[in-house]
């Protein structure tokens, strides 16, 4: 079950928040802004930490990865995964909720807060990731359609768009 959807702009400001199902504590708008800011910061710290943990045989550097991705786009003309969240915080699991983070190439972050996995589904990690990723893909599509193509929306500002709200609600129900 999905609790909440958050969208952060590239500076870590909260631009969209939709409480889909009740379950989380009632937080004030200000609290949500603080929450978004801290997650943005933790995400960045995580990206600093990741290459220094464990054995040092970390996969290709980010620059190299980008170069490979670029050349593969140039040669195949096929779209790559839109998720650029490679070394930052990816998901959080707690006893009462799960949180997933998706980052676009422009630094925009989508976050999902869901109920924790039911006990019988323990061990199906990849399935959960795939499900979250699919939802992110759909959300990103809605964002590109109904937010980016709206002439009255200014970039990085809060999204107050009933049309987008409706589409998001249709998506999650």
């Amino acid at each position, binding site marked *: 079950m999905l609790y909440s959807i958050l969208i952060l702009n590239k500076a*870590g400001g909260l631009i969209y928040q939709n409480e889909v199902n009740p379950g989380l504590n009632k937080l004030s708008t200000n609290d949500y802004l603080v929450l978004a800011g801290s997650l943005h*910061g933790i995400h960045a710290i*995580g990206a*600093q930490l990741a290459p220094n943990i464990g054995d040092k045989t970390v996969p290709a550097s980010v620059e190299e990865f980008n170069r490979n991705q670029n050349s593969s786009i*140039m040669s195949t003309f096929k779209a790559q995964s839109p998720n650029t969240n490679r*070394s930052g915080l990816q998901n959080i699991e707690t006893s009462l909720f799960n949180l997933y983070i998706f980052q676009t190439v422009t630094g925009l972050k989508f976050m999902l807060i869901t109920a924790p996995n039911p006990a019988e589904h323990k061990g199906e990690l990849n399935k959960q990731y795939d499900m979250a990723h699919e939802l992110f893909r759909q959300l990103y599509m809605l964002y590109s359609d109904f937010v980016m*193509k709206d002439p009255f929306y200014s970039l990085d500002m809060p999204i107050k768009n009933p049309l987008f709200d409706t589409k998001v609600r249709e998506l999650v129900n």
Partner: protein
Amino acid sequence: MSEDIILPSATSLSKLTIHDTSKTGFGYNPAIGPISNSITSETSSILINKRTITLSSAPSIYERNITNKKPVEINLSSLSFLFCEIVNWTHGQSRGIHDLEMKLNKLGYSIGQRYLELIKLRDGIKLNKRDLKIIDILHFIHGSFWKSIFGKHANELEKSQDVPNEYMIIENMPLLAKFINIPKDYADLNCGAFVAGIIEGALDSAGFYVNVTAHSVPMDGFPLRTVFLMKFDQSCLIRESIH
């Protein structure tokens, strides 16, 4: 490990700082912003020297026959982005809702004039006849004219019962307004003013002097339903009565 300042927006993409430029010359650096994607002498030389492959074997738009009757399809996303920018630009230039609608109408007007010419040419010389009656030209606008622009006929064509010179074309799913959200303080605005301009331009150059406005009349299931109200000039009605 170096104790760099952590740039939250950039680190997870790459360890980018303000002073970094991409090695390949491509790629967005959020720490810098749009400038990172701009064309410099370095990137332009990369672009020029890059071997490119033509993706489609179809001839370009310039090589195609202008009288080609096959519908030419374009991407809705590109069209929406273009229209979004048109509205945005016009919005910045105008002094109010009415002014904005007028400006959109004007932009559509010249398209309508030209498009009528083109579509009549494509209909072919033999079948081509000039519509003289209001009702005939309206059927043409509602039918084949609409179809060649939007790929479908308009939903309804109605005549006002109270006012003799008023006609309405009703479109349930306006294509251009699909992604547009009108903010609360612009409640009366309808970006269909652009389409109204197209209709007006076409009718005017066909010799029917008319004033077209767009109005949102939402219905269950069709929140974007738009009515294009056409008020014909008195002279058209007089001409109509002579025939």
